[in-house]
């Protein structure tokens, strides 16, 4: 019969059917009978190989729990990670969990699964979580994610100790040895000393590389400087505290005076400019995680072996260390929340956190201050102990900070992203306005942000 003839077309049709049926009925090898599939988007690490720790940890956990864990690593270049989060929040579809940049847990709080049970167990084991992480992640009394180790950074001073010794007469290695204690003269490491050193290094042609633009490195160090002067733009309720605020005026004035000793193009610097300034040997000091030193180790070892990381200077209100944490949050529309929680709890354990930090060469800082004693920070070289003072330690007598805290996070986020602290200094130092005019502008901007 004509209809039953074995033609090329019939063969193809039958073949396609067989392949389709086979594909649809294929077993999910990793998930047989148990945890199904979890899809997680993690931040794509700057440090080469920095993602390997999470890949291995997730693979191990998946194997043990018979769950298929699919990972995507999304970078923050061009704000790709932030855009992905925004798109997933709008469409209510996407990964089960996602790394969120510092302010985003607050932005999407309503769509994030509370993880208080996970946090309670972790806190019971490792003690309190970093208060800045709590400020950023906790909303209406609920934890909206698990503060992450991977990607979380602080920004102490990475100093060319030889240049500071030569031009400013300051021996930072003696002040802040890699021994878990303050050395002689550490109590003089304040913003006044810093200003004099900045002037001396500027005269010597190796100015401090401090960005003053609108990127996070600039906002972070200026934020810590403001806090150490006791300068707040708003109170905890978001009420502006600009009028008659002498501390704020002092902080702005300090920023203006310091700017005179910085390279004249710092107003356009991005987050990589300070790294380049240090690595090229043009700068005696930057505020940065150890990534600048790590790249120098690869590209300009002569510079790397003369770097020493020390805490930020202290001010009248204390010493603050700029801190920028990532959070891994579970979408409320995620399909496998229980398993995702278990995975996040696993990667937050001390062993996992130490493995993550080690893989990143010491860049990543776990959210628990009790974990500031990982060996990697003592052993990294050259010179040995160069990043010993990278995470905040008790003898630093400092606090972690984020710019514009303690303003309500929704408001602080807007001030941070729009870099109000660097702009107010720039309006005076570069724009020629008086401090009063600049503070007037600041108050008007703030009042606008408070509306709506």
């Amino acid at each position, binding site marked *: 019969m004509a209809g039953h003839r074995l033609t090329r077309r019939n063969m193809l049709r039958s073949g396609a059917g067989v392949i389709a049926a086979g594909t649809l009925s294929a077993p999910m090898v990793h998930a047989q009978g148990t945890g199904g599939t979890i899809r997680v988007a993690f931040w794509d690490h700057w440090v080469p190989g920095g993602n390997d720790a999470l890949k291995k940890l997730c693979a191990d956990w998946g194997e043990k729990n018979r769950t298929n864990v699919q990972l995507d690593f999304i970078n923050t270049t*061009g*704000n790709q990670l932030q855009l992905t989060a925004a798109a997933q929040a709008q469409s209510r579809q996407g990964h089960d969990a996602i790394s969120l940049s510092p*302010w985003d847990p607050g932005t999407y709080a309503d769509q994030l699964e509370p993880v208080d049970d996970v946090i309670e167990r972790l806190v019971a084991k490792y003690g309190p979580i970093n208060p800045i992480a709590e400020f950023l992640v906790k909303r209406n009394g609920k934890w909206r994610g698990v503060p992450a180790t991977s990607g979380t950074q602080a920004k102490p001073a990475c100093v060319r100790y030889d240049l500071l010794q030569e031009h400013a007469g300051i021996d930072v290695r003696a002040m802040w040895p890699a021994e878990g204690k303050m050395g002689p003269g550490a109590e003089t490491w304040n913003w006044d000393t810093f200003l004099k050193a900045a002037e001396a290094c500027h005269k010597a042609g190796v100015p401090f590389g401090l960005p003053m633009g609108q990127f996070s490195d600039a906002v972070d160090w200026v934020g810590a400087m403001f806090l150490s002067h006791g300068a707040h733009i708003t109170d905890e309720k978001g009420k502006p505290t600009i009028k008659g605020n002498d501390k704020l005026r002092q902080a702005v004035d300090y920023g203006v005076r310091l700017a005179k000793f910085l390279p004249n193009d710092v107003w*356009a610097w991005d987050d990589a400019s300070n790294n380049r300034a240090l690595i090229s040997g043009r700068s005696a000091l930057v505020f940065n995680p150890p990534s600048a030193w790590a790249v120098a180790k690869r590209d300009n070892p002569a510079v790397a072996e003369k770097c020493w990381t020390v805490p930020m200077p202290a001010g009248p209100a204390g010493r603050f260390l700029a801190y920028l944490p990532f959070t891994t949050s579970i979408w409320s529309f995620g399909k496998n929340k229980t398993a995702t929680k278990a995975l996040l709890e696993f990667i937050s354990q001390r062993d996992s956190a130490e493995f993550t930090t080690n893989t990143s060469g010491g860049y990543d800082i776990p959210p628990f201050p009790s974990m500031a004693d990982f060996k990697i920070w003592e052993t990294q070289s050259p010179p040995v102990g160069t990043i010993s003072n990278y995470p905040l330690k008790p003898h630093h007598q400092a606090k972690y900070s984020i710019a514009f805290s303690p303003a309500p996070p*929704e408001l602080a986020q*807007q001030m941070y992203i729009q870099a109000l602290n660097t*702009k107010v200094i720039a309006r005076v130092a*570069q724009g020629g306005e008086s401090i009063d005019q600049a503070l007037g502008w600041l108050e008007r901007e703030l009042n606008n942000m408070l509306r*709506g």
Partner: protein
Amino acid sequence: MALDATTVTAGAASGAPARPGLTLQRFARRRSTIAFIMALPLIAVIGGLVAWPAGYAIYLSTLNRRMTASIGLENFAILLESETFRMVIWQSCIFAFSAVVLKALLGFWLAHMLHHIPTKGQRIWRGMLLLPWVVPPALSTLGWWWMFDPSYSSLNWILNAIGAPSVPWLGEPWWARTSVIIVNVWAGTPFFMIMYLAALKSVPDQLYEAAAIDGATGWQGLRYVTLPMMRNIISITVLFSLIVTFANYDIVRVLTNGGPRDLTHVFASYAFQVGVLSGNIPRGAAVSLFMFPILAVVAFFVLRGVNQRNREMA
């Protein structure tokens, strides 16, 4: 009289009793029905990719920051009271109008140059001159950023080599604005060039010959022959470029991120900063919607001019 589908159907229908099947058939064979069906994919695309997002953006712009309640037009009022946003409006206009004028002038000049090159050599030049337009802007802008880099600018290296001082390309407001415009003009000029070249090639040679016989100079030929013949294409090109330039995002984002002191922000970069990065999507939507009335006014006048000229020519 030429017969068309409508008249044929009408003629056939007049002699026969109306039957339901035939009525449906007649309806399906109507020109307007066929046209509608054929345009349906386009209508769906415009509805899905233009009308719906625009409507959604308008809806978003009426919400509060948490997107939990409507606040009407409050976001627009807040923006208009913001010094920074008023500056963004001003800057966007300076950026768009100056860049479009420069692109149009340079494109016109390049098109003329190319038009007078023999056809054989023209292809190579045309291809080379189109390159800036073909390269993805985010990549080419990154190249410019390396040239303008605050600390390691290759342009400054050349300037220093000839004894000139360094230029703060991105650090000083005036230079930063100029740099952004330079890159936009570099990337957008080839579009004008190719459009004007096509227009120049369509001007009949007889008009120039007639003008030459009447003793017209080269300038008069340009003024009274070339420009009038190109008016429509110039208008449409300028309008199209104005829309694209107003909505430009990548150049500002890569070169200056809106700095220094917000002095290079344009609508799109500021909308992204306020909307996505600062977590205030309704206000970001309101920022981006501010472009609409400005462009609508420009589009109205340009398209009216084009239609008038078309009617005159018809």
